[in-house]
């Protein structure tokens, strides 16, 4: 079986992770932040699967499944929070949600 080498997969995974991280850091809409977080997780998943293939070991795939489950739950909680914020008519801007400042 041929195809692109593992390095390519890792490059794509790193790109996905970096894009996600950038989105988390610079975007102010919590919905987008959440979305970027998902992209980061997917980058990590891709890396896990690539390594699983590379090492001929199924553990990485199991990890990826677990991460997906966590990601799904996280999205539920995060979206729930965002909806709740919206209901309270709180502005959807992470820079203004700073009441935890010391």
């Amino acid at each position, binding site marked *: 079986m041929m195809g692109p080498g593992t390095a390519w997969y890792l490059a794509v995974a790193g790109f996905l992770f970096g894009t996600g*991280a950038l989105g*988390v*850091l*610079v975007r102010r809409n919590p919905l987008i*932040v959440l979305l970027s977080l998902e992209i980061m997780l997917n980058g990590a998943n891709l890396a896990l699967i690539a390594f699983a293939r590379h090492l001929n070991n199924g553990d990485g795939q199991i990890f990826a499944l677990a991460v997906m489950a966590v990601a799904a739950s996280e999205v539920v909680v995060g979206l729930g929070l965002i909806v709740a914020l919206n209901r309270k008519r709180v502005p959807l801007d*992470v*820079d203004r*949600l*700073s*009441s*935890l*400042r*010391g």
Partner: protein
Amino acid sequence: MIYGAWICLLSPLAAAGLITLGGERISRRGAGYLATLSCFVAFGGALASFVGLLGRSGGQRAVVSTAWTWISGGSYRSGFEVMIDPLSVFMMLIVAGVGALIVAYSIGYMDGDNEERRYFAYMALFVFSMLLLVQGGNLLILLAGWGMVGLSSYLLIGFWHDRPSAIAAAKKAFIMNAIGDATMALALFLLIKKAGSVEFGILGGQYTSTVATLVALGLLGGAVAKSAQLPLQTWLPDAMEGPTPVSALIHAATMVTAGVYLIVRTHAIFESAPHVADLAAGLGAGTLVVAGLIALVQVDIKRVIAYSTMSQIGYMFVGVGLGSYANGMFHLMTHAFFKALLFMAAGIVIHALADEQDVRKMGGLRQLMPRTYLAFLIGSLALVGIFPFAGFFSKDSILAAALDHGAYGYVLWVAGLAGAFLTGLYSFRLLFLVFWGEPSPFVREHFHALKRDVVGVSLAVPVAILAGLSVVGGWIQWAPLWHPIETWLQTAAEPTVSPRSWQEAVSSALALLLGLGGIYLAWLFYGVRRFAVPRFAFAQRVLEHKFYFDELYDALFYRPTVWAAKSLYRWVEEPLIDESSDSLGQDTRDLGRLVARGQTGLLRTYALAIASSVAVLAIVFVAVR
């Protein structure tokens, strides 16, 4: 016989316990009757012990009964022992006898007070403590009784606890006495160290003169504090804040004479330290003159009598300090009679005048209360030592003993004679001021006579009995014609002086003349008022301030202590301790504020922190590999 002693000791304690535990189930008057009864039972026990001792020959008149071993450790052990010997039986008879009369008197005097039960419980407790003191079979029990009479005295002086002055007086008495208790305890520690025991017998042992002097000084300190002698005398006049029967029982007849008893009981150690014995006599002589002078200007009827008490105890100290133990104890006995009589007669006057004690408001009571006047007159005559009343016999023997003690004795003798003159002057000044002349407006307004009910009888009968004793009590011993008390006490304390007949005669004659002279002078100034009372502004001021002893102690001890406490607070407590705990808290908070600045509340900073940390970790991970 020994059962008599135990009954004597325990019956007042039982009464105190019953009254305390019975609470309202015992009526107020019932408490009074119970306390009185217990004291009479105690007197019966004392009589039984006395009769028992009489049946024995001289050498065997000391019986010790041990209830249990109280403290034992190593080779040291001391039991809870009572001892009856001629000296303790002598004291038991006085304490229980006079005590019973005074408690009976209290039934009338305290009638209508709100807290009669508490009063009678305290009184019974006092009688128990005093009996414990005189019956104690070793020095430790004696010290226990010593402390407990101090406690009872404190409780009774402060009995009217809603008067700030009474509370202050109670505290003063307790603290002054605590000084004496402490020196006594130190003396005991030294004895235990040197002799390993607290039995009375070890006092006669061989000690180096330093040890003997220190022990004697410690014991003398206790005696001086309890007996209100110079320089620890200032508490006694203030103690008059207590109810009058308390003054009669504790601060005249029994407790304050405990110092005299102590010196006689421990005479062996004083004989090995003759300088301390001389010091005791000297302090006594000083006190008797000083107190006599102060009594001249006091205007509170009870305070005058209190100063005369100090003065008379001064005589006893002179007597026992010189080694004339029987005479000191004899004077203790007659003094208990006539001083209790004077206090109780004064109590009747105070009672009849709606609790007024200022003699300047009194006068002319002779017509209104002739029998009280008679009692007071008898008491005063006995106090001055006029033949044939009690004081004549006992006081003059002490003076004669002083005459038999060399040059130092002459000084004491002169002081004693001066005291006799002063006694005549101040006691009859009081008598004339209160009873002679026309009734003052205050008296006319407030006087109400005693009725023939329980109150009246309870007040009158003990006074009458004591008046009788003050007349005849002195005849028991008339040195050198007959001296049963000296013979009786010989086995307990052998006198070291034996005045000759001419010394007795000279002392008696001079003391009698000087006493009469004092009375005559008082009569001129206060009785018939032939002359105006001379005023010496300076002397008056000094005497009214009681020779500035209170002010001296205030300046010497009280103020420095307060100053030290305040400066410690200001220079140590506030800047060091208080400040350091404050700044500890403050600094922690400041540090917290500093750290809290990192908590921006912005999601992106947290995310950046995490991301950069991970990046750094990754780089380190890669680079280190």
